[in-house]
């Protein structure tokens, strides 16, 4: 078959072209048609991405901090239900349950947390949806709490459970990051109900959904723990 004087379509080229098209076409077709094939592949790549992020991650890198005048007005509410359904917890009877690989499992009260050394930060919360906002949080550094309760810090995972049934988990290294705090205050005042009162996680090295609100329990595990959104397909590591 002649295309023009100078260029020829060869049988070898034609067969090769058809074969490549068929290979790419059938792979794409399998992805489009088979839900389980697609899910398996996307799950595997997401796990691989966890590994790649873990390798890239370093606790030496601090999240950028901002000045008071850079704090966002009207910090957005976000959650898997409307703001009005946010749980209402009594700060006096609230206790932080401790579990898993920790030596001291005595639940902590809000007063116990207030007595510990506090850290304040003005950082950017970045949501997986793409938006971001700068806020000021203060509270107890998580590394300090984990050391105080004698948590196993070697190759473990920290799981956070919440009053609204939400839960998430993080690698121990990110949990020990100097800017990872159990926040009690937002903009210098105790957390408001919609924003996680009485205690939320503020972890600037992770996407927003890892910053769990209405915390009721912290536990340390050898096995990966997943999470509410993570089970629905959000990447587990989700580091920034």
């Amino acid at each position, binding site marked *: 078959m002649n*295309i*023009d004087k*100078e*260029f*020829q*379509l*060869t049988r*070898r*080229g*034609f067969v*090769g*072209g058809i074969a*490549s*098209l068929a290979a*790419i076409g059938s792979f*794409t077709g399998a992805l489009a048609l088979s839900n389980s094939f697609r899910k398996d*592949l*996307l799950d595997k*790549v*997401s796990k691989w*991405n966890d590994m790649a992020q873990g390798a*890239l*991650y*370093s606790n030496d*890198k*601090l*999240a*950028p901090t901002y000045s008071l005048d850079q704090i966002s007005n009207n910090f957005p509410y976000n959650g898997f239900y409307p703001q009005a359904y946010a749980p209402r917890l009594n700060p006096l009877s609230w206790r932080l349950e401790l579990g898993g690989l920790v030596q001291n499992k005595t639940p902590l009260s809000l007063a116990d947390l207030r007595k510990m050394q506090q850290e304040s930060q003005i950082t*950017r919360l*970045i*949501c*997986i*949806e*793409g*938006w*971001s906002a700068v806020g000021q949080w203060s509270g107890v550094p998580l590394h300090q709490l984990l050391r105080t309760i004698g948590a196993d810090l070697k190759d473990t995972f920290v799981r956070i459970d919440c009053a609204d049934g939400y839960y998430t988990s993080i690698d121990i290294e990110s949990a020990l990051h100097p800017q990872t705090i159990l926040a009690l205050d937002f903009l210098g005042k105790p957390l408001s109900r919609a924003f996680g009162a009485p205690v939320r996680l503020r972890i*600037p*090295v992770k996407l927003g959904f890892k910053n769990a609100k209405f915390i009721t329990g912290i536990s340390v595990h050898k096995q990966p723990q997943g999470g509410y*959104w993570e089970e*629905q*397909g*959000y*990447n587990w590591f989700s*580091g*920034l």
Partner: protein
Amino acid sequence: MPIHSAILRVVHGLNAIAVLGLISSGWAIYNAAPFLPFTFPVSISLGGYLTEALRWHFMLVWLFIITTTLFIVLRLSPLSPYYGPSLFPISYKAIQRDLVQALTFKLKHKLGQYNHIQRFLYVTVLLSFSVLFLSGFGLWKPVQLQPFNHIVGGYESMRRVHFGAMAVIASFSVIHLIMVLLVPKTLLSMLFGLQNNATQVKSPDIDSLLLKSRENEY
């Protein structure tokens, strides 16, 4: 030897799939928090909603990195046996001339040689790919790779840079396909690897060597 060697055709095909998938899954990700007064139709976005779109985006980015790197190494490094036609020089006058010819269907398209529209577009694509790649890393790791975002003034600016580079590539894809339709033999060449029987070749030494090595094959 074929204008487009088998490996280049496969790499180009996979790269095109990666880029189209990244663009359309990117649209679904953008839809979750749009910063312009519009969103993209779910029907043309890969994954449809955020969770699935993100999974696609962060899978296809690997295919994009691998195929783009391969393409650059194979096509743009002078030592490669697949070293392609030169992208330079590019002149504004020549682009105008070629554009007028293309629009009046008079553009002489020589396989194995880039006209000035192609040169301009391909350089633009390579630059946009670099911007997409670097801004993507900046958005993915705004803490670990802070300097990436600092260059453009922070995370929020970087989102817009990433979006803008996407728009350039999406526009290119449309123009690229129109150009291919104007010169259909390029499509055949990209799919089936047309043989170049022309006597005018730039470096006769290499070509005669290649011809000799291929004599047994045909």
